[in-house]
């Protein structure tokens, strides 16, 4: 059960031009104690977002009302480190549906798709263009078209295509998920398990 379908998203974007954003920054370990998938957005980027006394850090982008939107744009190697899916849950729960970067860590990328967030990998040059466009005009929009596999900047009209495997693309467009797929082939899996023994 994916949580949303994803087809075309046009939105303003939140820039986070930092490299190697690890999942401990996205959601620190001390906020992983829940037994339900609820409320993780409140602690998204907790230690970058809040001071020790819980007051917001003024210089952090999520606390700057100029920036908003459903697209988060991060520096290269986004989502490295821990496999905690809570990182993807926090990003989703905060309201993002798409993360753009020039490079993603493997586990994060998989987790993102599994919770209905589209990770869009662009070239380093295009990433620079995105950051520049947002800096010039925080109200500028970006359009991500999953069907066409393109990302387009309204400001300049610049467009780049991105890759995603056909199976996962189909899942996101239709709101299908892997667990349904695997349930549908349970008998094949059981048969495979039997041939696996000696």
């Amino acid at each position, binding site marked *: 059960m994916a949580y949303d379908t994803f087809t075309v998203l046009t939105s303003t974007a939140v820039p986070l031009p*930092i490299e190697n954003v690890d999942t401990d920054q996205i959601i620190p370990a*001390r906020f992983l104690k829940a037994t339900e998938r609820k409320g993780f957005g409140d602690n998204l980027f907790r230690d970058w977002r809040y001071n020790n006394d819980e007051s917001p850090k003024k210089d952090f982008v999520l606390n700057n009302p100029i920036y908003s939107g459903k697209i988060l744009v991060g520096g290269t190697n986004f989502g490295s480190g821990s496999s905690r899916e809570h990182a993807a849950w926090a990003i989703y729960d905060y309201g993002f549906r798409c993360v753009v970067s020039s490079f993603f860590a493997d586990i994060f990328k998989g987790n993102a798709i599994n919770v209905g967030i589209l990770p869009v990998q662009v070239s380093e040059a295009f990433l620079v263009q995105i950051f520049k466009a947002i800096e010039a005009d925080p109200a500028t929009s970006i359009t991500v078209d999953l069907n066409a596999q393109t990302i387009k900047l309204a400001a300049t009209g610049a467009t780049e295509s991105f890759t995603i495997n056909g199976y996962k693309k189909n899942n996101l467009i239709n709101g299908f998920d892997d667990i349904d797929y695997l349930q549908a082939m*349970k008998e*094949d899996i059981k048969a495979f398990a039997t041939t696996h023994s000696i």
Partner: protein
Amino acid sequence: MWEQNFPIKYFKKISMSNKPSTLFDKVWDAHVVRKIEDGPDVFFIDRHFIHEVTSPVAFLGLESRGIDVMFPDCTFATADHNTPTINQHLPVADPLSANQLQALERNSAKYGISHWGLGDPKNGIVHVVGPENGITLPGMTIVCGDSHTSTHGAFGAIAFGIGTSEVEMVLSSQCIMQPKPKKMRINVNGQLGKAVTPKDVTLYIIAQLTTAGATGYFVEYAGDVFEKMSMEGRMTVCNMSIEMGARGGMIAPDETTFKYINGREKAPKGAAWDKALAYWKTLKTDAGASFDKEYNFEAADIEPMITYGTNPGMGMGISKHIPKATDLAGGVATYEKSLKYMGFEEDQLMIGKKVDYVFIGSCTNGRIEDFRAFASIVKGRKKADHITAWIVPGSHIVEAQIKEEGILDILTEAGFLLRQPGCSACLAMNDDKIPAGKYAVSTSNRNFEGRQGPGSRTLLASPYVAAAAAVTGVVTDPREFL
């Protein structure tokens, strides 16, 4: 029946092709249930470990879909991330932690999954207890909702971390949907220098490749440095594979591997052992097999290592100066942010820097060999007065070894306290948190901002470097003591 054969399970499927193939290909290809065109492989999982933090939502998913656990015998639960490391006989004080531990116990009981909870003699860090109980075997596929599952690759298994959605997949279908990674081989040959441990080898490799240098790849470690390494050392190296972005790393099983496994509780016995052994001996990369990327390093180039920044790729020989941003690949702003967080400057020496905390433990360096190394330096010396040291065994079995071998006496004599097993200050989910601004020399795996507690500053290193810092109170070259 497949289920009835548990736990003596291994795989007869080997490549039918005469083409030379890699260890990774042999194990991967034997586990593909279905190949999806322009999609992932439906990938069969032999062993699944779960812990209290990344499993509860997966069990909720099963409930909401009304589906069952397919092969409960293939999943093992242990509590480790959230557990206290003192007074484990008392109720867990933090209600949220207690709730997660209870959820693991309840879910395991409900679905018939074996569960090693707090206080169980088999309890410990998931990547320590799997191997020491003979659950981890060559040729297997092993997953867990924890990125350091790569540890089990030391046995010639394909082992890697997964997200909670995938935990639900494995519980419900014993499979995940995984695109096959590319293949990388890292060869290290020659003689390691004095006080250079497996941890230094892996920190050196990660510093060379960077924190994202192996993303998209699965690594095979080869060369005589790994051939001569103990299983504990191989686990340390494979454990850290994720810190350069690799999903996992593996080492071909050999006599060292077989000797380690033989006689462990869940390892095959008798005729089954002989048959397993014959199969395990085929698990190596054939001459002429090709890799997408290959690196060669010389053992002699590796010093005792230490990290100075906020990702594990920011490491260097302990005697060196902190690099200048302009000498490194990557963005200057990110590098400067990192050094500022650490309170360091470019071109400074690490030697002599004041340390506040020392942590030895974790799935990286929480095994008996690590405590032997630590004890070899602190023996006959005293803990520096201002140092707070957390000495945390990876499991009760390791804890018992520490006592049996007289290491506890050495630690006590030197002014150290031995704590109880768990992940502890590696990720600081329990009370073992390094305070803001303080420096910790830590044998764990990640030096990310706040990893060991909000505002904490982590210097990753080997048990020798940790011991040298614990007795001197500053960053010290351990070669002085050996």
